[in-house]
Structure formats: C-alpha cells, structure tokens
C-alpha cells in the first residue's frame, strides 16, 4: 500500500458488497415472493431490481428485499416501494423490463411510473 488513494479504491470497490449489512435504508423495495409471485415470474423481477439498483449506484439509499404473499395474487408479480415520510407505491403485474423503468424513473428520477401502479391496473 503506497498511497491513501489505493486504500480508498479498495474501499469504494468493497462498499457495495457489505452495504447490505447496514440494514434497511431510506427506500425499501419489497418484492412479493410467495408461491403465487414466483409462479407469475417474481424472481427475474427481484433480480433485475438488485442488479439495476447496483448499476445505478443506488445501493446506499435503496434496500431490495422480499416478502411473502401480499394477498392480491391476481396482480402478481407485485412490488411495493416504501419511502420514509411518503405513501407506499404498489406496482403490479411487473416484469424485468418494467423493473428497469421503475429503477431509472422512480428510484433514480423520483417520479412514480403511474401506468404500472395498482390504481391504473385494477
């Protein structure tokens, strides 16, 4: 180790890999992963969220986790986004492509993708 910059480079590279252990952050993305969700294709949705959040450098701010059956099986895969101080947003009938858009527009841009929300699909 010859310089602080070298140390900082390792820290930056590793930070994303341990950030998960700091527990829930400000924004929580929860994917319904019960039997109904998995059957409807929730796994690619979950994995896309994890990948995109990391790719966009949002891992310090956003936690992606799973939950069981939310109770609206006909709308699976369901994704809920919780943000401190805001009403939760429920996206329904998600897929990997839609997930990508939610990450870039909602999580990064701060604008809810209304066409995927439950209000517009019920």
């Amino acid at each position, binding site marked *: *180790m*010859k*310089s*602080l910059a070298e*140390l900082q480079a*390792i*820290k930056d*590279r*590793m*930070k994303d*890999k*341990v950030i*998960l*252990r700091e*527990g*829930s952050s400000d924004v929580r993305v929860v*994917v*319904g*992963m*019960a*039997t109904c969700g*998995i059957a409807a294709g929730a796994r690619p949705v*979950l*994995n896309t969220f*994890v*990948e995109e959040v*990391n790719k966009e450098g949002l891992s310090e701010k956003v*936690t*992606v*986790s*799973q*939950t*069981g059956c939310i109770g609206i099986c006909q709308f699976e895969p369901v994704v809920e986004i919780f943000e401190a101080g805001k009403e939760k947003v429920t996206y329904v009938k998600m897929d990997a492509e839609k997930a990508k858009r939610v990450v870039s527009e909602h999580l990064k841009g701060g604008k809810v993708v209304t066409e995927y929300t439950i209000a517009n699909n019920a």
Partner: protein
Amino acid sequence: MIRAHVLICGGTGCTSSGSKAIQAAFTDAIAKNGLEDEIKLVQTGCFGLCALGPVVIVYPDGTFYSRVTPEDVEEIVSEHLLKGRVVERLAYTDTGKEVAEVAASEISLSDTAFYKSQNRVVLRNCGVIDPENIEEYIAMDGYQALGKVLTEMTPEEVIKVVTDSGLRGRGGGGFPTGRKWSLCAPNKAPQKYVVCNADEGDPGAFMDRSVLEGDPHCIIEAMAIAGYAIGATQGYVYVRAEYPIAVKRLQIAIDQAREYGLLGKDIFGSGFDFDLHIRLGAGAFVCGEETALMTSIEGNRGEPRPRPPYPAVKGLYESPTVENNVETFANIPQIILRGADWFASMGTEKSKGTKVFALGGKIKHTGLVEIPMGTTLREIIEDIGGGIPNGKKFKAAQTGGPSGGCIPASLIDTEVDYDNLIAIGCMMGSGGMIVMDEDNCMVDMAKFFLEFTVDESCGKCTPCRVGTKRLLEMLDKITKGQGTLEDLDELERLCYYIKENSLCGLGQTAPNPVLATLRFFRDEYVAHVVDKKCPAGVCKDLLKFEIDKDKCIGCGMCARQCPASAISKTDYIAPGKKLPAHEIDPNKCVKCGACMSVCKFKAISKK
C-alpha cells in the same frame, strides 16, 4: 448479483454449539435451490448473544435466527431466502416489551432488548464482517486511521488525540493510555516495541478473544498507530494458545496486511516501517501481568519483575515498550478517525468511552455486551442481560475475576465505571461479569477464586506463594464448619498483609474476592462459623438432607438413585399395607442431592 447476505457466527461459542455444520448445510441448501448467485454466505466473529447460539443473521432484512440446527437450514433457505417469509419460530424477537404483538419480520436486531442499550465501538465489526477478508475491513473504514496518522499527523499529535480522548487501559488497571504512550515516546533506543496483551486469563472473560476472532485487523492497525506514535517498528501480540480460532484468524490477518503493504516497509509511502509477530502463551495467569508477559516473550519463565524500571523505560529486551490490552487497542482507530471529543462524549467524567463485558453465570443472556461507561448494573443485568432465570433473586455480580470483588444487590444502581467500582472496594477488571443468585454461597465463591490464584501464583514471592495458600486453608476450614469468629479477623489481617507485600498485581489483588465478600456478606461468614450453616445450601459439610415423613410415599425412586446406598429400602411388604417412608443415614450420605432431584413429591429438603 448478490441480493442477500447470510451471516453465520464463527466465534468460539457458536463454533462449539455447531455453527460449522450449519454453514455446511447452508452451502448445500443454497446450491440445491439454485441461489448461489444471489445469496452470499459469510462467516463472522461473535455477535454477542452466545446464550442463543448458533446464531444466523439474514441481511438486508436483519432477521436474527437463534439456536439454529442443521435441520432448520433447509426451511430458512426455502422459506426466507427463496420466498421471503421469515421463519417465525426461529426468529429472536425479545424486545423487552411485555406483549410483543409485532411480526418477527418487523423486528430488526437493533430493536431487541439485548442490543438496544448497547453502544458498539470496540465490537462494531464483530458479527458484521468476515474477519478473514481484509477487504471487508477496509470497506468498513479499515486502515483509514493508519493512513491519516502516517500522512497527516505527527507522533506528538497522535499522542495528544489519544490523551485528550480520556481512554484508559481496558485490561483492568485503568491507566490513561495517552500518558503511557507519552512516557515511552521520548526515550531514545535503537529498537522500541509495541506489545498487545491478549493473555486473557480471568475465568469467564472472553472479550479479547472475541475481538481477535471477529475483527483482528483493528488490532493490527492500532498497534501500527501506536508504533508510529512512540517510534517503534516492531510489535508482538501475546495470545493464549487456548484460543486457536483467534490465533488462526490473527495470523491470516497479519499475512494479508503484509500482502497489502499495510505491515512492512514504507507503509503508505511515509517511510514508516512496522511489523508484527504472534507469541503464544502457555496459559499461565501471571503472564497477563505486563512484566511477566514480556519475560515470557523473551523466552524465559513467566515471572514478574519489580518496577521501576517501568516498561516505558526498560521493557521487552530491556528496550522502551508500550503494552496495551486488546480492547484498549480496538478503540484507537475509531478515536483517530472520529476525534477525541467524540470519544470523550461517551461515558462518565473520569471514565470515557465504552466497556465490553462478558456476562456469565445466573443470567438469561450470557454473552458479550458493550455499554457506555456509567451504565448502571441494573440496566446491564435486567435490561440487556434479561434478568435472572427461574425466578430467582439477584444476589451479587462478581467483576474483575480473581483480582476483583463483588457488587451486592443493594448497590445494583451503581453506575459502572473505574472510580465507582474502586470506591465500593471492587474493580472493573478486564470485563468478566459473573452474575450470582440466592443459590450461590459467597464463601464458596471466594474459595473458588482463591483456589485459582493458589494454582496460578508463580511462586516467586513468599506473601503470594504461601499467603494465598494459608487463606485458602482458612476458607476451607470455614466451609467445613470448623471456623471461629477469630478466624474471620485473622483472615482479614492476612488479606491486607498479602496485598501490601506481594511483588506483582497477581498477589496484590488475590485477596480481593475475600475482602469484598467479607465486607458485603459478613453475615454469611458468621452463619458458617457460628450457626454452622450455609444459608445458600452449597457447602456440603454443613448440609443435612432430610425426608419429610408426611410427604414421602415410599416409592423408592430416591433409594434407587442414591449412589451411596444411604437411603432405606423396603424389600417386602404385606399386601394392602402402606409403604413406609424412606430414611437417610447421615453417616453414609455424600450430599450429592441426587435424591432431591428425582423426588416427585418434594419430600426431601436440604438444610
């Protein structure tokens, strides 16, 4: 892409309750469910809640699974990791509230009663990072403090920050760390040394082991900082050979630090060289005393030597040396990074920062806790420790091991710091805290620690070698019911004699358990010598087992259980007759209590 981490405790406690098998089961189950690319398994150091081990934590949810068995693993993987459903029956959710109506998935680790009141500085990485991976330590600000010290600060500035923080030696003595360094720094010598005392010998104490097992790099970093501050280029960690996991992880950490150039020549291009070696101790208690420890590193018999000269002037290999305890070192990187004021904002007026305690004995949550100095004993025992099991009453807490004293129930609101404990005739010690309830005999407890010091006295000076032996004989006499009131006075006199005349800390503190119990529990000593009774029912020679004739139905359970055939048996009885009650022959009875534990009618009592 990894979306969840499964942390499995690899501390000594959880390893002995089977965490290795659990790790293997997780590897299999994750592969079986095809989750290798999504879930990362991490072996960490101690989480602290050893009583509930083996412990597994799943992040990002922060779900805390306790007492996990290999059979549970498949369920955790298929339910929680695959489907996102917390396995409620295994989740630890004790928030200390009377009714826990909240679902387990809503309770995170920091909400539980055990963790809520803790403040983790020394243990901040224990149970969070993989101790065998230097990059995880670096991700958690590791080696930043060393970088800052070497590139931005002079040695004098480093010492000033440590002095201003108010950090005091965590090995038990409480000597200000900054002053220790500043006494050594000006001494000129061709070679100076930094020594880490990891010879943790108090029965029941395992703070230092847990730090070495869970976060070994922070010790390496702190020792290099100390080396820079005092002008030493060589360090030794003296650790007990009984700590194989700690030794292994520390060696891995040292090798990694050398590979990354964080030990060795010209660290951070500053021109500063520092290297580190491990020396294994053979487990002699006296080697925790600083001069004996250095003598042992030199390859000689571990015996203390008189001070002065102090180690700051003539220590290891007759060279100026700074020696600090593991926990003291573990505070250093944080103090450098976050500043003296941050550290001094925690704790009491004269005791700054936090202290780690190893909770043991009659307490629900045995394990490792870190609390700010000045936390009351009541909070430690009732809130964090979860109270006394089986509805028993708290009697006393023993701190400081064989060198310490005890805090009786009447002083449970004492704020725990160096000076308050000394004021009540106790001491902080290295952090072992053994909780005792009404079933513990204080004379017996004092005798236990005396047996330990008699065994561990190195024999160099007479007051300790002979004096402790005489003390033990007197205690033995008392517990056998042969003592007199004059013996109690003689006991006390001898205690003070040993304290004043012994060469090193071992002898000077050996009588403390006796003095403390005499001070707070003199009535128990008097009961032993005057009434010939042991109020707690521990000292066998003073006990008498009796069978209540009205309660006994003559079933024969006790007689079959008795290893000494001391209980009467009925061989034949005429049909229709009632079985006669059993009787115990006091001459044959060995007072093992086996009969009492099998009697279904509570007919047997000990007095």
